[in-house]
C-alpha cells in the first residue's frame, strides 16, 4: 500500500493516495449510512419480487403483482372510459334539442362529437368540416336538408340516398342533358339563367330563354324563385354557396349529368350517443339553425338552441 500517514491537523490517517498534493482522509463512514445502503438493497429485492425484473430467455419474470405497462394502459383506458360513462349516459338521456341548455353537458357533447367527427367524417367533409366540391361545407349556414339540430340528427342517422333505409334523405335530379330532356343549347340557357340569379352571369337573352326552360323543368324541386326546397334536398340556386361549383362549365355539367351525392346512414354504424354528439358538433360550427319547437311542448322552446 502506498503512502499512508497521519494527517497532522486532523489526526486522521490518510488512505494513502495522492493526487497533485491532494490526499484523502480515511474517515469512517457513519453507521446509519451503511444501514441505509442495506435498506436500499432490501428494497431492491422486494422490488424485484413484485415487479418484472429478471430477463429470461423469452420474456422476463412477471413479478407477484403482475404489473405490466400494457396492463397499466388498459386500466387507464378503462378508467377513462368509466369516467366518461356518466356524461355519455346524460347525453343519451337528454333530448337532443335540450342539451344546449346545459352548458357543461353541451361542451362535453361537442368535444365528443369533434372526436367522432375526426374518426368518421373527415374523409369527405375535411378535418375542418369545410367540405370540398361535392361534399358540403358544414360550417356555413346553407343546409340542403335542414340545419336545425333535429334535422341534422335525422340526416346523420339515416344518411342520404341510402337504399334500404326507409327514412333516408332521398331525391333524384334528372340528368337533363344526358337523358336528352334538354338539348345542349337549352342546358346552356338554363345555366346562364341560374348563374344570373346570383349575379354571376349577365341577364342576357340566353338567360332569359333559360328562365322559361327553368320554369318548365326545374321549379318542381328548386321552387319558382329557385331558392330550393329542403324536402327534396334541392339546393338554393340564388346564394353564394355552390356544392358542385359556380363556374359555368360546372353548372352545365351538373345539369347535364345530375349529381346524387350519398352519405352513409350512421344509425347502423355508430351508437346513438355518438350520433347525437356528432349532430351537436356539426350544429355548433357556426351555421346551425334554431330549432323551432313543435307547439305541443311550448315550454321547451326556449331551452337552449339560442344558437344562430
Amino acid at each position: 500500500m502506498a503512502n499512508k500517514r497521519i494527517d497532522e491537523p486532523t489526526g486522521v490517517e490518510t488512505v494513502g493516495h495522492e493526487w497533485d498534493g491532494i490526499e484523502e482522509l480515511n474517515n469512517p463512514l457513519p453507521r446509519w449510512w451503511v444501514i441505509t445502503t442495506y435498506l436500499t438493497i432490501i428494497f431492491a429485492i422486494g422490488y424485484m419480487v413484485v415487479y418484472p425484473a429478471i430477463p429470461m430467455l423469452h420474456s422476463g419474470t412477471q413479478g407477484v403483482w403482475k404489473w405490466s405497462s400494457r396492463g397499466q394502459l388498459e386500466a387507464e383506458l378503462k378508467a377513462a372510459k368509466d369516467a366518461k360513462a356518466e356524461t355519455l349516459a346524460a347525453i343519451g338521456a337528454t333530448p337532443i334539442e335540450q342539451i344546449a341548455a346545459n352548458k357543461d353537458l353541451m361542451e362535453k357533447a361537442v368535444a365528443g362529437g369533434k372526436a367522432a367527427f375526426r374518426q368518421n367524417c373527415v374523409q369527405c367533409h375535411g378535418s375542418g368540416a369545410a367540405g370540398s366540391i361535392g361534399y358540403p361545407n358544414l360550417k356555413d349556414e346553407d343546409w340542403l336538408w335542414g340545419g336545425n339540430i333535429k334535422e341534422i340528427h335525422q340526416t346523420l342517422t339515416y344518411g342520404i340516398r341510402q337504399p334500404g333505409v326507409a327514412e333516408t334523405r332521398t331525391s333524384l335530379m334528372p340528368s337533363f342533358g344526358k337523358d336528352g330532356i334538354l338539348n345542349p343549347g337549352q342546358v346552356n340557357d338554363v345555366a346562364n339563367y341560374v348563374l344570373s340569379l346570383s349575379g354571376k352571369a349577365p341577364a342576357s337573352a340566353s338567360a332569359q330563354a333559360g328562365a322559361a326552360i327553368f320554369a318548365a323543368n326545374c321549379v318542381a324541386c328548386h321552387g319558382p324563385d329557385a331558392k330550393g326546397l329542403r324536402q327534396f334536398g334541392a339546393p338554393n340556386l340564388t346564394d353564394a354557396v355552390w356544392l358542385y361549383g359556380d363556374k359555368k362549365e360546372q353548372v352545365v355539367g351538373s345539369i347535364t349529368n345530375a349529381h346524387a351525392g350519398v352519405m352513409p346512414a350512421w344509425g347502423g354504424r355508430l351508437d346513438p350517443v355518438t350520433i347525437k354528439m356528432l349532430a351537436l358538433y356539426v350544429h355548433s360550427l357556426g351555421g346551425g339553425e334554431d330549432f323551432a319547437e313543435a307547439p305541443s311542448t311550448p315550454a321547451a322552446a326556449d331551452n337552449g338552441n339560442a344558437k344562430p
Partner: protein
Amino acid sequence: MLSPDQVKQPTSLYEKRKAVFPKAVDGRFRRFKWLVMAFTLGVYYITPWLRWNRGPYAPNQAVLVDLAHRRFYMFGIEIWPHEFYFVAGLLIMAGIGLFLITSAVGRAWCGYACPQTVWTDLFQHVDRLIDGDRNAQLRLEAAPWGPHKLFKRGLKWSIYLFISFWTGGAWIMYFADAPSLTRDFWSGNAAGVAYATVGVLTATTFLLGGFMREQVCIYMCPWPRIQTAMLDEKSLIVTYKDWRGEPRGSVKKAEKNPGGVGDCVDCNQCVNVCPTGYDIRNGPDIRCITCALCIDACDSVMAQVGRPRGLIDYATLEDCKSEREGGEARPISKALFHTRTLIYTGVWAAIGAALLFALGARTRIDIAVQKDRNPPYTLQSSGEVRNDYTVKLRNMETRPRPMEVTIDGLPGGRMWTDDMPREQAARSIKVLVEPDRVDPLRVYVVAPSGTAEQHFKFVLRASDAEGGGDVNDVRFDAPGEGEE
C-alpha cells in the same frame, strides 16, 4: 502539536453516531436564537390561519398555494401561472440573499434560521425538559433499560412525534383553506395526498429532528459544502482566538505561572454547549454551524474568571491575522461592509425593485385571440366571408367585470358569438367576464363579399370604472384572386 487523543486510528470502516448532549446556555446569542426560533416557528404555524378578505370570488386565506386552481395568493398579491416569474424572482432573491448572508456573517442561515437547526433546537429543549440538562442526559443514556428509562424515552419520543405531526399538519395548510382542511382531515374526508404529506413530513421531522440532528448538517446537506466556497477572509465566522487562549491552563496554573498560560482555562464549556459536538478550538470546520452558543458559554466563563469576553467570537480571518499581530479588534459592524456584500446587496435589491415594478405595472385584463386556420374562411350563402376565432378574455380581478370587445379595422366587418343570434351581429359585443377566470369565446366575424385578406384588431376595454384594456392583432382570410 498533536495531543494523543486527537489522533484517531480508524478501527472500523463505520462509525456509530456519537450522540451529542448539548448543555443549556444563556447569553446574547442564545437569546437571539430564542427570538429567531419563536419568529420562524410562529410564522410557520400561524401564517396559514391568517385571513385576508378578497371578496366573494376568491379564497380568504392570506397565504395560499392553490395548486388545483393554479393560483398563488400572498396577502394582497395574487399570482397566476403565467406570472410565475415572480416566484422565480423570489427564489433567485432567496438564493442571492443566502450568498449575501454567507459572505457577510458566514453560516448564519445554518446557525439560526435553517429548519433543521430550529427543529433540532426545539427537540433539544424537549430533551432538557424530560431528561434534564447535559449531565442528567448522559446519566440516563448510560443507565440500563428499566421502567424509569422506558417511561422517559416513551414520553420524550411521544412529544417528538406530537411536534412532528403538527409540523407536517401545518405544512398542508398552505395548500388548502386551513379551517376546512382541518375539519376534513379529522373527519377523514381530506385528499389522500394530504394524509400522505402529513405522514411523510411527520416521519422526516421525527427522524431528522429527533435522531439525525447534526448528521444532517455534516453528511446530508449540500449547503455547508457550497458555503465553504463562498466564505472568504472577509466573512464573519465563529473563531477561537488561539493566540490569546493558548497555551491552555487552569486559573491556578496561571496564578503559579503568570504570563506563561493563555486565557483558555480548558473548561470544555464551548464543546459541551455545541449542538454538533464540535470543539471550535480546533479551527473552522464543516461541523461548526456558527450558532455562536460557544461564544455565550465562553463569555460567561471569562466573566467568572475575570478575563475580557470574546476569546471565542465572531471575527473575520483578516481581523484574526491583524489581531494576532497585535492590531485592535475591529467592531463587527465594520466587517459587514465589503465589496462582495455590497455587490450582493445591490443585485438583490435590483431584482427586488424590478419585481416590485413588474408587480405594479402588470395588467389584470388581457385578450388573446386564436384564429381558426382550418378552414381559413367560410363563404356564407349571402356571399359574405366568415372567419372564426377563439377569443380568450382574462379577468384577473376577483370580481366579475363587464368588458367590450370591438373590431378595429376590417371595413363592414361584424361579429357574433355562440350566445347571441346571428342576426344581432355587430362591430362590438359586450361580455361579462367571470371573476378570476379566462373565458374562451367563439367569435364569428363576417365581412362583405369581396373583402380582401387583411389584418385587423380585436380591442378589449373594461367598461367599469377601473377601465383598462388590451389589443390583439389578427388576420382575416378571404378568397383571393383566381382562387375558388
